[in-house]
Structure formats: C-alpha cells, structure tokens
C-alpha cells in the first residue's frame, strides 16, 4: 500500500522569527568556517544582525496582535509568546554585546559560541510558544543542552567545566523528573496538548486525584529547578560562579524567563484544576526562595555567587505573582521578568567590565574604590543594585510594587509582608558592594577594560532600568495585554483597564 504523506504546513509567516533564526544559525555556523581566528567577533556581530531581524519580525507580529494556534495545537503564536520572544532576543543581543570583549580575554573566541547561543535562543522562543508537552520538553532540552555547553566553554578552566558537569548532571536528573510528571499527565488525560489536558481535567473532576497531584509535584520539581527555587536551587551558585560570566548573565535571565513562560502555560492552562494544591506549594517555594536566597547572599564574598543567591531570591518574588493568581499578579510576572533582564544582566556585565587577563574581577573586594576610578561605572552599578533591591525610582521598584500589590489584592498579606521584609534585607548585601565602591580607599591600581560595545550595552541597560522605573506605563500595558490570552483558561476574569 503506497501512501503519500501530506505534511500539513500552516502559514509559516507566523513562525517567521523562529525560521529566520534557524536559518541564521546555520548560516552563521557555515560562515564561521571562513572567518580567521582573530576576527571571530564578526560572527557575533553577524548574529546581532540576525537577532535584530528576529526582533523586528516578532515585534511586527506582536503589534499585529496575532493569536494563532499552529501545527494542530503544538504551538501558539499569541501575545504571551511574542512578548517573551522579544524579551529573549533582547537578552541574547545584550549577552552577545557583553561577550564580544570577554571571549578573547578568556581565549575562547570561537564562532560556535554564538551559534550555540542562538540555538539556546531558539529553544527559549519555542518554549514560550509551546502549547504541547512534547514541544515544551524538546525546546526545554534544546535550551538546556546549549547552556550545558556554554557553561563549560572555557575548557581549560577547571571551574568552568565543573560548572558544566554539575549543571548537566542535575539538569538531566531534573528533566527526567519533569518528564515523569509529563508522562503521568499524559496517562491521566490521554493527550499531550495543554488545552486538551485542561479540558479533560475540567470535565472529569480530577482536582483531588492523587496521580494528578503526583504529576503536579514532579512538574513543580522540574520547573523549580529551572527557575532556581529553593530547595531545587542548589546548583545555582556553583554553576553561576563557574560558568563564563556572559553565560552566567544569560543563564540568570533567559532560561529563567523561559521556564516561567512554560510554567505559566502548563499550570494555568493544563492543570489549573489542581490550582489549590500547586498554589500552596508555590507559596512555600516563594517564601523559602526569598528568605534563603537573601540570607545566604549576605555571607558571600564572591560577587558572582552573591548575585546567584540574589537571583534565587528574585525567583521567589516572581513566584508571588503566580501565587497571587489575579490579573495583576500574572502581569507582574511578565513585567518583573522584563525589568529583571536589564538589572540582572547589567549587574553581571559590571563583572565583565572588571575582568582582565589576570583576574576575573568577580570578588566584592575587586570593586573597592571603583567610584574613584570611574564614577560612571560605579553609578551604573548603583542603579542596578537599587533596582535589584527594589528602591525607587528604578524598574525593580515598579516590578516589586506590582507583585506585592497583587499579593495584597489577592489577600496574601502574609506573603507580601515576607516579601517586603526580604527586600529590606536584600538592600543590605547589595549595599556592601556600594559601600566598597564609594567608601573604601583603592587598594591598588584598578584597570577597567572598556570596549565600545560593552559600554554601549551597559548604557542601554542603565537607561532601560531607569526608564522602566520612571515611565513604566507602556510596559505594564504590554504585560497586561500579553497575559490576556492565558487568562480565560486560567479562570481569571480580565477586568477592564
């Protein structure tokens, strides 16, 4: 029996960003072969061009208000996905900008670096758009595999390769756990499609089905690993410290945001029926993450580790938005992710500014007296720290404001109090660095190795952090409207704005 395969191709223009990026990766990897060793930064610049195209394309689709479901429900092209796609592209563009100077310093100036970074981007983009367990799993693995590789990119540095190994082993372990949860979910509902699972759960009252709760716990464990929530966070400080700094910067924002996107899709669409259960677990994870992240950050001497713990705490803050479970709450997740991109990438970029051949510049003491040498750099750092600590008038303040306001509105006053107290603690360790920069005398000569692109990227991040604090309105609007496609499925009534 001869059958012809009719591969159903939808209108591909809706996934043009992904297509452009895929084509671009292949092109970049090929062209890389013909670029001499000392000119590899051209590969980076070429990647930037491709990312710009991707961004424009996503932006166009976003503005057009696309809301499609493609490939038989495998993929959604909606505001939610496109919002995250744009965030990811910005993240990667900034990452490339801060890598251009770093790679030659560590003698890892390889074209493949950019190629793999683009693969990770592709994974994240698909992840945010996936509406099927299979696509989510595959894109998550595409992203993770790329990052395992990037974490170990400085092969000659034992720390870097150690970070890669730790991340790889734990990542594979956690994705096995996640996968088990997905398998149980599939068995319970007979489909891997998120909306399909959601409607099956709604039709057959499975909200107290033990297997469903088991699946939910396994899924939480898998995602909590990716977003670095306590107690699934243990890898974070080690991996962040060991990985090449631009990769750390990238890891601390990109994959985290992608994991939040997929988490929201799964938990709000597929298993919203067991919401009371996962809500209380997320409550606990949020409290633990904020508290342990902030408290342990105080004891750190390495800036990279300190920022790693601070990023754990930030995952806790973002979880508050999900726990709150109202429209502001969900929108605040999107908003916070955006703000977090700029402030956290910015803070990590400062480390690159101090990185030289002789030292990595990632200790807090390396920053002693920076304000005397370069007040601009110190001021930039202060902006990032103020934002991370949630002090007005920075983006971090607006983000936290929305998150806590959502919690209060949803009557999670206790959670809000814990969050506010935690952000009070956090300023303490951020300001240790500020004190070192402003108050203490310079121990010796301090060399800043500036690179025009790095300086440009830093300027962009500072301005973005401030802008988000001073004029956040349009971005809040965007977050609100991007969240809209998911709200009806999550059972939240979108009120009028």
């Amino acid at each position: 029996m001869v059958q012809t395969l009719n591969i159903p191709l939808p209108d591909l223009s809706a996934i043009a960003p992904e297509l452009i990026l895929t084509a671009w990766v292949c092109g970049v990897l090929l062209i890389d072969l013909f670029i001499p060793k000392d000119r590899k930064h051209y590969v980076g610049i070429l990647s930037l061009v491709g990312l710009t195209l991707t961004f424009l394309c996503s932006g166009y689709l976003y503005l057009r208000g696309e809301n499609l479901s493609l490939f038989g429900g495998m993929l959604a092209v909606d505001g939610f996905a496109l919002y995250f796609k744009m965030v990811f592209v910005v993240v990667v563009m900034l990452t490339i900008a801060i890598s251009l100077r770093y790679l030659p310093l560590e003698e890892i100036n390889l074209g493949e670096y950019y190629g793999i970074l683009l693969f990770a981007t592709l994974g994240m983009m698909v992840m945010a758009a996936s509406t099927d367990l299979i696509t989510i799993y595959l894109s998550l693995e595409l992203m993770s595999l790329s990052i395992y590789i990037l974490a170990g990119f400085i092969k000659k540095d034992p720390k870097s390769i150690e970070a890669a190994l730790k991340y790889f082993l734990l990542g594979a372990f956690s994705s096995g756990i996640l996968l088990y949860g997905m398998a149980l979910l599939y068995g319970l509902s007979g489909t891997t499609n998120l909306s399909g699972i959601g409607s099956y759960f709604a039709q057959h009252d499975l909200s107290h089905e033990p297997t469903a709760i088991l699946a939910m716990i396994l899924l939480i464990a898998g995602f909590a690993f990716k977003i670095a929530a306590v107690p699934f966070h243990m890898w974070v400080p080690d991996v962040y410290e060991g990985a090449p700094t631009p990769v750390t910067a990238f890891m601390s924002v990109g994959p985290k945001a992608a994991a939040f996107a997929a988490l929201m899709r799964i938990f709000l669409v597929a298993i919203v029926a067991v919401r009371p259960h996962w809500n209380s677990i997320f409550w606990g994870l949020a409290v633990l993450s904020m508290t342990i992240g902030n408290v342990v950050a105080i004891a750190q001497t390495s800036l990279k580790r300190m920022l790693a713990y601070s990023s754990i705490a930030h995952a806790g803050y973002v979880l508050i938005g999900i726990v709150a479970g109202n429209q502001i709450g969900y929108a605040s997740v999107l908003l916070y992710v955006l703000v977090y991109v700029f402030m956290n990438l910015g803070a990590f970029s400062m480390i690159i500014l101090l990185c030289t051949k002789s030292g990595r510049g990632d200790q807090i003491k390396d920053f002693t007296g920076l304000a005397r040498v370069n007040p601009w750099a110190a001021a930039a750092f202060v902006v990032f720290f103020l934002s991370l600590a949630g002090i007005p008038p920075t983006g971090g303040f607006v983000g936290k404001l929305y998150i806590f306001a959502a919690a209060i509105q949803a009557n999670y006053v206790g959670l809000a109090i814990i969050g506010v107290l935690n952000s009070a603690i956090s300023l303490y360790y951020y300001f240790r660095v500020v004190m070192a920069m402003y108050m203490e005398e310079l121990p010796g000569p301090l060399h800043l190795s500036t690179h025009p692109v790095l300086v440009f990227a830093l300027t962009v991040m500072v301005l973005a952090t401030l802008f988000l604090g001073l004029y956040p309105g349009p971005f809040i609007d965007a977050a609100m409207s991007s969240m809209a496609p998911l709200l009806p499925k999550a059972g939240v009534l979108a009120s009028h704005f």
Partner: protein
Amino acid sequence: MDLGFFLLFAGLAVFSALMVVTQKDVVHSALFLVSTLFWVASLYVLLQAEFLAAVQVLVYAGAIMVLILFTVLLIQMEEVQKTNPWHRQWPLALLLGPFLLLEIVLIVRRGLFPFQLGEFTSDKLAAVGNTEAFGQILFTRYFFPFEVASVLLLAAMIGAIVLAKKELGK
C-alpha cells in the same frame, strides 16, 4: 501468556537495572545497561510498539551505549576503580528511594486512567502496522516537534565537538 512474558522481561529488566547501579566496574555497568535496554525493548513489543523496540535496540543499545563505552575506553579508568564507588550519602538515598517508590506505587495503583480515547486500538494497529501508523503520525501531527528535535541534535553535535576536541595548535 502475556503476563508470563511480562513478568519474565520485567524481572530481567529490573535485575539488570539493579546490576547497573551496583556493579563496581563501569564496563560491567554499561553491559548491564545494554541488557536492561534490551529487556525493556522486549516489553515494548508486548505493548505493540514494535518500531520503538527497534529504535530502542538500534539507537539506545547500539549507538548510545557504544558512545559510552568509547568514552570509558578513552579515559584510563584504573585509578577510578580503586576508590570507593559509593557516595557518602548512600544510606539516606537508600532510605528515601524505596519510600518514595512505595508512595508512587500506591498512588498510581489508584490512578483514574482513561481507557481507549484514541483511534489506534490494538486491532487497528495490527491492521495498519505499527511502523506505518507511527511514521504517518510522526510526519503529520508531530511534524513540528520533529523539526525541533533535529535542531536539538544539531546543537548537541556541535556542542559535543566544541567541548571534546583538543585545542589545536597548542
């Protein structure tokens, strides 16, 4: 009849899996893993997933295990063999693991799993043939994930080369 085969294959698979974990020598572990994979593949046949059984043997037991064995041989293991193979935390892991397993076993026993929601009943599968039905669905409904998987393999390949190759000219 089926149950007999199931018990046989499952028993062998679990035994091999236990040996993978308990064998001191990496090569022995690897060989037992091949055995586990093979018995699991046999179970796939029982479950009317012949194509997967073939893939399991060819890709898993064949390709992946060869990769692992190559690595083992590439790395001089003498020194590794001498040390204690067990992590210090083994008592706790051994305590928690069976407990969690027991919980999972008891939970899934009561699971309300639906029955025959899809179209590929045993009879239909027998008529069409597993491989054909599989191929059909893989390239239609699951076309997009298939493409993602291909990109994933490309990324993994490039990454593995970058990480594993020796620095040239040094």
